[in-house]
């Protein structure tokens, strides 16, 4: 390198406004793809035989938080079934409201009390799906990640198996990353 190293690091000082937890403006297409994934997870996960969830005739997908995919999922599950079982969508706003569900999707807006949610769900065999990588690190079994303009997901296999969930190889193969 003949000339002086020419590095300019422009530092923009902390724009210190106590703004609300920013959530990412999501296109509806991204939400629809994630909804499609949730439906697929319900297809390819086995709940433990000892748990009533494996024998009910309705699969419940719970959504906590203000995620746009909820509206699409609500409509789209009408008239569909997974191996004969109907599918319903339940929405929660606070941790206390959460009732039994097969899958719980944690929105980015609930990042703040993610630890609380995960703690309360720890003993249940509910599949925990997080909206982003941050939630994955806090202990969700799966979470979405956008890579190269496509929606992918990560899997924490050991965490899921620890609560008795069995993930089909189909999920593991398509996953962008499998840990544990």
């Amino acid at each position, binding site marked *: *390198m*003949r*000339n002086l*190293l*020419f*590095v*300019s*690091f*422009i530092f*923009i000082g*902390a*724009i*210190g*406004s*106590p*703004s*609300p*937890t*920013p*959530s*990412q*403006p999501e*296109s509806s*297409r*991204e939400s*629809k*793809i994630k*909804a*499609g*994934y949730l*439906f*697929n997870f319900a297809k*390819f996960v086995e709940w433990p035989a000892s748990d009533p969830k494996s024998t009910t005739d309705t699969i419940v997908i719970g959504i906590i938080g203000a995620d746009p995919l909820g509206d*699409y999922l609500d409509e*789209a*599950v009408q008239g*569909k079934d997974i191996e004969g079982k109907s599918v319903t969508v339940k929405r929660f706003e606070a941790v206390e409201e959460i009732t039994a569900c097969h899958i719980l999707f944690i929105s980015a807006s609930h990042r703040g009390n993610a630890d609380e949610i995960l703690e309360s769900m720890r003993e249940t065999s509910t599949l925990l799906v997080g909206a982003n990588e941050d939630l994955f690190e806090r202990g969700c079994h799966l979470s979405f990640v*956008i890579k*190269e*303009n*496509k*929606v*992918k997901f990560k899997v924490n296999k050991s965490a899921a198996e620890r609560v008795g969930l069995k993930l089909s190889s*189909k*999920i593991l*193969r*398509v996953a*962008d*990353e499998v840990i544990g």
Partner: protein
Amino acid sequence: MIRLPWKPELVAIGIFLGASIAYGQTEADTPETGGDDFLEMDIEELAELDVVVTSVSKREEKLSEAPSAIHVVTQEDIRRSGATSIPEALRMVPGLHVARINANIWAISARGFQEQFGTKLLVLIDGRSVYDPLFSGVYWDVQDVLMEDIERIEVIRGPGATLWGANAVNGVINVITKNAKDTLGGLISGQVGSEEDILGLRYGWKLPNGASMRVYGKFKEIDAFEDAFGEETDDDWSMERAGFRLDWDVSDEESLTFQGDIYNGDISNQTILPTLAPPYVDPSVSGNDVAGGNLLMRWRKDLSEELDIELQTYYDRTERIEKDFEGFRDTFDIELTTHWDPATWHEFVWGVGYRYTSDEFRSFTFTPGLIPTERKDDLFSAFIQDTITLREDCLKLTIGSKFEYNDYTGFEVQPSARLAFTPDSRNTTWAAVSRAVRTPNRAEHGAFVSQAVFPNPMDPLAPPQSITVLGNDDFDSEELIAFELGHRLQYNKRLSIDIAGFIDTYDHLRTLEGGAPFLETEPSPYVVLPQIFDNEMDGNVYGVEVAADCQVTDRWKLFAGYTYVQMQLHAEDDGGMGFFGAEGGEGSTPHHQFHARSYYDLPCGFEFDMGLYAVSSLPNYGVPSYLRLDTRLGYRPSEQLELSIGAQNILDDRHPEFGITSSIPPTEVEHSVYAKMTYRF
């Protein structure tokens, strides 16, 4: 006069036939509804869906339904092809002609008219135009980004003028870098090789208010290429650049982006300049200094469910000092775009913009000259486009027009109509008719450039004579009316095919016309034999682009693309010099181009990738056809570390890709090897 030749109709019929055969062969389990039921999709399908495509209609749109010939170069394509610069990454795009003239100059165009300053291709980096109004082309040596920061490169072949303005005649290339929130953490990327040494550094972090930011530095040194005899020439160069990007999702409805870059480089080229004294030529090497920078801001806000606005503004400065001239340019641009979806069957996009550009040009020798030496130009533009859903999830008509007022030709209108037919989720047929113009550049209106000087053949003591290219105040815009037709088929989960055909009818194409000689006295007396810019050529260009993408097995992905272009140009009296004449124009673009790529994921984190390029000859320059094979072996033991070695152009010691155009002689692309390491933390 524009005559439509009979052959392109065969091409169009061929495409119709191909599309009907394709319909017949789509699999029986094609879903009945034309719409997208994401819950019906397989998990593998969901993983392959693109979220957005933005260039085609200036709004987020599913790529498979876009009514244009569009190709996306992904970050993975860049990584696995070993491309170290944007021009090299563009080689794999069907329909684009990429020829490397020497180590630091590329000739890139789409659908014909390949030349060093390809005038009919608009290139943007994150929305900032890098199309230089001096020559209507792109100086590719200074357009660079950290390759790992590229999210994708969207390339649309065909006129994009309705949305993107004049000069997007044959295509729009949009290089899109990653949002800062996707580049958190550190990255060190180092590459050494027989031709190039590159170091890239980047660090990204989150700010207290939730915004994300990154800064980067990139340093590269590139060796000279060889000439036809294997002798090293003088086109080596080095560049250093640094920049930042800040992205802030203020809320669910509002986002803000700031980005900027600065660069500085030394570029060496043998530059053959005519002189007024014997031996009338100075072939010495020029050490060029290039520098520049830019700053851009983009703000987007959803005002309601139906209405959103985006404001973008940028400042760009370029400086170029060569042995014969120095040029400086400042550009300021501001654009406001609005998306409005009042009812489910109308989607409006409209916008207004203003661009101001100011330049200074100083010549160190008697040539080249530019008149005036300083110029300030305003460009006012507005556009409107509506996408009308004629039949839900089935037929959409997009009509619109751009209106511009520029300081050379005044008012220009560029309308287009595009139709997209999506009978089911696997097939899209589209057709389009558009008008686009290529506005004059500074050189065409004000050049005074000597091409060659020789002594008076009758009297060696008389003043020498110079064939000089002169600008013309009346030089008009080149005009295109394009007819396009294409079909996209998602044959099954693994295979997709894309076909696009076009018939481009041109008028007022640039020529050089001989003028009356006159005596010039500065700096010393010589006779000017003028070649004056004019618009005396018309003609047609037609062709077809086919591409297929196949996930052969879970580990093996193949891509293949073929491009055919035929130019039939007609100059009023076969205007003037070499490549500006009709035959020259026709013979500067290869008729056939073929490209194939293979990505193979081996066990234990190894990857083996290959790229094959076959390009037919350039008769105008006597450049023969060539075949190029690139290979790469990668190893990714973890998320953090990636190692790779590659050998490029292994079938040849060297080969030329283009001929002499300006004052710089072409050199040959050599074979090369490299080793690269990328570490993330």
